Each structure stands twice: as structure tokens, then as C-alpha cells.
């Protein structure tokens, strides 16, 4: 240590630069003027980078970014084509990289693997020349099966697009449901036009051993399960949107594994609203007591009873009332002149009153533990895929004070500005998972921001552009992969072919290139789904999906045809 210090000190002296040496826990850090920096050119060589990491601390607040630069050197460049693997539906890697979640083809079982790595040895001189031994090129070399649990009973199916992971306790949330009934009658407070599912069960599993810790059942209800749309996980709070009964159920996942009801927002805002309204029902003369008994149903097995208001009720309660009164007060406050005020009210509020009454909750997300961002829209747009032509509104709701804080239409510039500046705060994550803060968004990445800017400049109509951007709100929970290979400041890739969102994409025969953003801006690796020689049959449409491990240089690409043929799975890893 003394010799190293002495030698480097002498070297620097001789070069005549002006610096000062600081010792930091036994290591040496160099800092200094421009001439000093010229010495410390950034090499792309991994050894040089490791050495520089030893002797230099990164600028404050950038230690994770500097560490991620090593992902420019460690890339999944080697591909094993068409690995023989069990015929499962591969869902995703958990965000801490501990498990690979798969479902069986019949959508009834859950299989969990642990990702490991190859282990084989090569005793010869030059091992790089040799190809991998055939027994290494198997699925089992990379994954060990932990367990296989049957979640769905005979007539239920696991929803293969739904999976939420609670990292702090390593719990996974899965959903099973029976078949959808499309023309369900609107009984018991349900709204017309929304399909009904006889039974939806949410299973909370401990992923270490596959033990089902708790279940939550919704009967004759509808929750949009595709891609986690109807459920949002924030820390330990779950928000489940029951579209059919227009209620947002807030549940808490305890450390013991229990799903505990916190509140149900919809017909009632506070926990004791129902008690109050029921106790005052005779004085109001609106609700008939006999009707009340008919309508009370047990919808939630854990014992929470809710009585459903009949549509003949003369007053609007719950969140709808909050919303209408907020809109009313907003318009009232715009003008001090009474006649003008009444005029505005007529024009803006009463004219659209029926539309406001008909609004239903589409989607919900947490902004923090007390605030919800709720998307309202018309009944038609609730279940349809394309929501562009349907008007939509956003409201920020404070659960504690039961106040609506803000209300925007979906082409509001104000909300778009907030989205543009504070996008990361919409992608709310739990405090525990720090890596989620580094998923590229246009608030934390200059390249993404440039893309957004260019989109905005190209857009013909600004309100259409705003609508398109705000259509992504509220965001889906855990929809983006935290893999550093999707970091826009490290790599450039074709967003249409592959991206951090785990959606199926059109598959092409050409490999997907990942090009470095920084100089030398070369191609670093390619991901090619499908068999090595390309597809024989080019007529059938193929879709591919990609599963990237959160931190290892490892990816799975799965190519499947639309018919239920076995999929071609490629393993991409760093050899």
C-alpha cells in the first residue's frame, strides 16, 4: 500500500499538475483541475473501469448511475436458440430477481422457478473457442423449480396477465376468475353495461415456499385484471376497482400475510357513512326499509357488509357527491357577480349534469398513501380497449379528508404539465424498491425527454397530443421492467420491437439491436427471438415477448404464434 501510494504520488508530482491528495478510508481519490481530468479519460474497457471505480468516487447522487454503466460491458450477447423448456406460460421475473413466475398451459397452476446460472467447467487452455456443452443448453441449467401450486379449481382460470409482487415480504398476488358473463342484469346496485364475473379470487402467496396466505373473493363482480389494470399496489396498500359496483376497495397486506380491509370508497366515503345514513333513513323518507333488506348482500367474504343503493334513490352519496359538489363550487367560485355565476352554472354544470351523474370510475392509482388519482369516464368506455373517443376525467381524491382536491378533463393542459414535469411521482413506488427510481421516464432521462419533445412538436393538435399522453394515466402497477438494458441513457433500441413494458409485440425475423448511447455508440448486443435460422413459415403472424432479469445479463425471449402451438424460447445471457 505504501509503495502504491508513493509511486502514484511521484507520478503525479512529475506531471506537474496541481492537485491535492485525500485519503478516504485507505483508498486514494484524485480530484483536480482540467489537466487532471485529461488524464482520467473514460475508457470502455471493463478493467480500466474497475480500476477507476477503485480510485474515484462518482459525483454526488450518481453512484447508481455510475454503477449501471457497467451494464455497457456486461451484455447478454450469447443466445441459445430454441431451448427445450417445459411448456409453461412465462409471466415475468420478480423485480428483485429472485423468482421466475410461470403458469401452466391450462391456466390452473402456478410454477415458480429460481433463476440460477450455468455451472460447468472447462479445463482446456482456451475455453472461449469452445461452444457450450449440450447439457448446458437446457432450461434446467438456468432455472431450478421451486414448487408447483394449484391455484384455480375446476371452473376457474388463473388470469395470466395479472401478477403483483410485494418485495418487502416476498409476497405475490395472483388472481383467478370464472368465466365472464357479458349481459349481466344490473341488480343490487350494479351498473348496466359492465360484464359480470361470478367469482374473482385474489390469492396472496408467500413466494419462498408457495403457501397461500390469504384470499379475497369478489362475487358477481368485475375487476379489470388484464395487465394489472384494475388493481394498484403501493407499498402495502392495494386498491381494487370493482367496476360493476363502482367501489374502490382499499386493502392492506400485513406482514403476517393477511389481507385486511381498510375502506371501500364508492357509495360511501367514510367508514361510518353507511351507519349514519341507515340510522337516519326514516327521517329522510327516501329509502324504504323493506327495499333495504332486499338489497343488502354479502359481497365480500371477509365479513364486510355493504348495502347497495337502489337506483331510485333521490340523492347522490359517496364519491359522486364529492365530485359534483367540487365541480359546483369550482364554477361558483369563478365569478363574484351573482347573475354571471348562475349563468356559468347553467352552462357548465347543469347542462352537463346528466353526464356528470353518469360518470363511472374507470381506473385508480395511488399518488401517496392518502391520495388517489381516479379516472372517470362513461360506461361504454369502461371495458373497451380504445378509450380515445370517450370523454374522461381525472380527479385527485384525498382518502383521509374525503375531499376531491382537483378535477381535470383528459385534455387539460394543467394536468399534462404536471405529468410532464413530475412523471416519476405518478409512477409511485414503494420506499423499499430503490431500483424503481431508475426506470427511464421523461422526468429522469434526457433522451426520453427529447423523444417526448419531438412527439409534441410533431403533433398536429395539442389537445389530441395531451389526450394521448394522459391516456396512460393512471399507470398500471409494476408494468415496467427495471432491467438496466432498457435504460435510455445506456442503450438505444427500437421501441416498437422491444421496451420495458411487458407487452406482446409483433415479432420480426431481424434481431433487435441494442446500441450504446455513449461514444463509441456501437452495437453491443442483439436479441433475436425465434429459431436461429429464422422462421420457415413467414405467413403466420408471430408475437414475441421478452423477459429480462432485473439485474443479471440474462433475458428470455418467447416467440409464439397466435394458435396454441408451443412457443420458441431463446435464452440470451452473457457467456
Amino acid at each position, binding site marked *: 500500500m505504501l509503495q502504491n501510494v508513493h509511486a502514484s504520488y511521484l507520478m503525479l508530482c512529475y506531471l506537474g499538475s496541481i492537485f491535492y491528495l485525500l485519503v*478516504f478510508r485507505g483508498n486514494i481519490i484524485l480530484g483536480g483541475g482540467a489537466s487532471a481530468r485529461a488524464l482520467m479519460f473514460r475508457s470502455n474497457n471493463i478493467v480500466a473501469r474497475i480500476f477507476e471505480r477503485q480510485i474515484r468516487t462518482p459525483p454526488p447522487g450518481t453512484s447508481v448511475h455510475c454503477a449501471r454503466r457497467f451494464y455497457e460491458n456486461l451484455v447478454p450477447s450469447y443466445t441459445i436458440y430454441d431451448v427445450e423448456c417445459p411448456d409453461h406460460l412465462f409471466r415475468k421475473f420478480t423485480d428483485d430477481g429472485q423468482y421466475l413466475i410461470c403458469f401452466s398451459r391450462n391456466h390452473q397452476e402456478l410454477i415458480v422457478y429460481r433463476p440460477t446460472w450455468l455451472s460447468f467447467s472447462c479445463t482446456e487452455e482456451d475455453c472461449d473457442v469452445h461452444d457450450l456443452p449440450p447439457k448446458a443448453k437446457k432450461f434446467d441449467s438456468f432455472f431450478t423449480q421451486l414448487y408447483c401450486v394449484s391455484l384455480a379449481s375446476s371452473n376457474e382460470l388463473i388470469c395470466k396477465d395479472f401478477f403483483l409482487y410485494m418485495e418487502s415480504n416476498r409476497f405475490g398476488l395472483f388472481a383467478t376468475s370464472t368465466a365472464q358473463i357479458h349481459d349481466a342484469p344490473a341488480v343490487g346496485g350494479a351498473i348496466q353495461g359492465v360484464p359480470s364475473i361470478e367469482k374473482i379470487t385474489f390469492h396472496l402467496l408467500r413466494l419462498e415456499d408457495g403457501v397461500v396466505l390469504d384470499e379475497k373473493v369478489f362475487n358477481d363482480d368485475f375487476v379489470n385484471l388484464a395487465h394489472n389494470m384494475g388493481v394498484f399496489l403501493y407499498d402495502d396498500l392495494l386498491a381494487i376497482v370493482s367496476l360493476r359496483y363502482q367501489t374502490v376497495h382499499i386493502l392492506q397486506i400485513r406482514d403476517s400475510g393477511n389481507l385486511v380491509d381498510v375502506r371501500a370508497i364508492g357509495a360511501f366515503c367514510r367508514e361510518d357513512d353507511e351507519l349514519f345514513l341507515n340510522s337516519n333513513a326514516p327521517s329522510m323518507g327516501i329509502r324504504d326499509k323493506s327495499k333495504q333488506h332486499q338489497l343488502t348482500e354479502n359481497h365480500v367474504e371477509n365479513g364486510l357488509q355493504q348495502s347497495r343503493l337502489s337506483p331510485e334513490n333521490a340523492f347522490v352519496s359517496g364519491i359522486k357527491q364529492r365530485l359534483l359538489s367540487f365541480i359546483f363550487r369550482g364554477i361558483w367560485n369563478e365569478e363574484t357577480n351573482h347573475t354571471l355565476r348562475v349563468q356559468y352554472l347553467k352552462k357548465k354544470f347543469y347542462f352537463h349534469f346528466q353526464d356528470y351523474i353518469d360518470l363511472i370510475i374507470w381506473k385508480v392509482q395511488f*399518488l401517496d398513501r392518502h391520495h388517489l388519482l381516479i379516472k372517470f369516464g362513461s360506461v361504454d368506455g369502461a371495458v373497451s380497449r380504445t378509450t380515445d373517443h370517450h370523454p374522461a376525467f381525472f380527479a385527485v381524491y384525498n382518502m383521509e379528508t374525503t375531499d376531491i382536491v382537483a378535477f381535470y378533463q383528459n385534455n387539460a393542459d394543467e394536468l399534462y404539465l404536471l405529468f410532464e414535469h413530475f412523471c416519476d411521482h405518478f409512477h409511485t413506488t414503494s420506499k423499499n424498491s430503490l431500483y424503481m427510481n431508475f426506470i427511464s421516464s421523461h422526468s429522469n432521462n434526457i433522451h426520453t425527454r427529447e423523444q417526448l419533445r419531438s412527439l409534441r412538436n410533431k403533433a398536429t393538435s395539442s389537445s389530441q397530443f395531451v389526450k394521448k399522453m394522459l391516456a396512460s394515466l393512471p399507470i398500471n402497477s409494476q408494468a415496467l421492467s427495471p432491467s438496466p438494458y432498457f435504460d435510455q441513457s445506456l442503450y438505444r433500441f427500437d421501441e416498437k420491437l422491444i421496451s420495458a413494458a411487458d407487452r406482446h409485440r409483433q415479432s420480426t425475423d431481424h434481431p433487435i439491436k441494442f446500441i450504446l448511447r455513449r461514444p463509441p455508440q456501437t452495437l453491443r448486443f442483439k436479441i433475436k427471438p425465434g429459431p436461429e435460422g429464422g422462421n420457415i413459415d413467414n405467413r403466420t403472424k408471430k408475437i414475441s415477448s421478452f423477459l429480462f432479469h432485473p439485474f443479471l445479463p440474462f433475458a428470455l425471449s418467447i416467440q409464439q404464434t397466435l394458435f396454441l402451438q408451443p412457443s420458441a424460447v431463446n435464452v440470451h445471457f452473457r457467456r
Partner: protein
Amino acid sequence: MLRCFADYRHLRGESVCERLRSSGLASSRIWNLDLVFIWAPHLDLDLAASEKSGAFVIMGSVLGDWPSYDPHNFSQLRPSDPSTPSKMTPTTYQPTHNRTLPPPDQVITTETKNILLRHIYQRAEEKLRPKRAAPEHLLPEHGCKQLRASVQDTPC
């Protein structure tokens, strides 16, 4: 180059040496510094650890083997007796007025609302603010259920 060392040492080195000295782990070698060492926050710990492990801590005596620009640079700072603690205290500045005193009950904490919510609340308050006078009678009091019921009785 060593002039820079000297200046730096005047700024920081004395207080560092003072702390080292006061921690009881100092030795005479400290004074013969031509390089300043700043430790991580846990000053005493680091020193103890490196002394134990025998790693190189302080570079020998003044200009022992080390090249220096002017050997007389450090002549003034050589205390003769290592046992007497240094009397140097860093100069402190006392304010002559109390305009900048914080209020006595001030507690500094992190704002719980994140910046997005802060902006949303700010905009909401801006919308309400200029028209404060008129809607007073319209707003029912919050948290008073009886009042709310009577307001709801009348159709909107």
C-alpha cells in the same frame, strides 16, 4: 504544489489534527504532515482500524523522503512537545444581531406530501383564493354530519 498543501492544511488540517489528538490516538508523527488526510465521518473508528491492521496511516516525518518545494514551509508548525495538547481552537463568528435567529419552536422536518401533490394543492388553493368572500355561506362546515344531512335534503 506544497504551498497548496499548506493552505489546505491550515484550513482543515489543524482541526483534523485536533480531533485526532483529542481522541487519544494521536502521535507525534501527526504534526509532521505534508499531506492532509481527511477521514470519513467516523473519524476515530477509521484511525483505530487502520492502526490495528498496520496499514499505512500517516506519512513519516517532515519531508523525510518526500520531495518538497520549500523545506521551510512547515518550520513554524512543528510543536516541540507532543504531550501538551494544542491550544488552537478554530475561530468562530458570533452574529451581532438576532434577525436571523430561528423561532424558538422551529422544527425542521421533511414535507410529507410529495412535490406533485404540493403543486396540485397549490393550484387548487389558487383557484379558491380570489373568490373567498362570496362562497362562505355556501360551504357546509367540514366534519359536521348533521349539517351535511340538512344540506343534502334540498335538491342541488
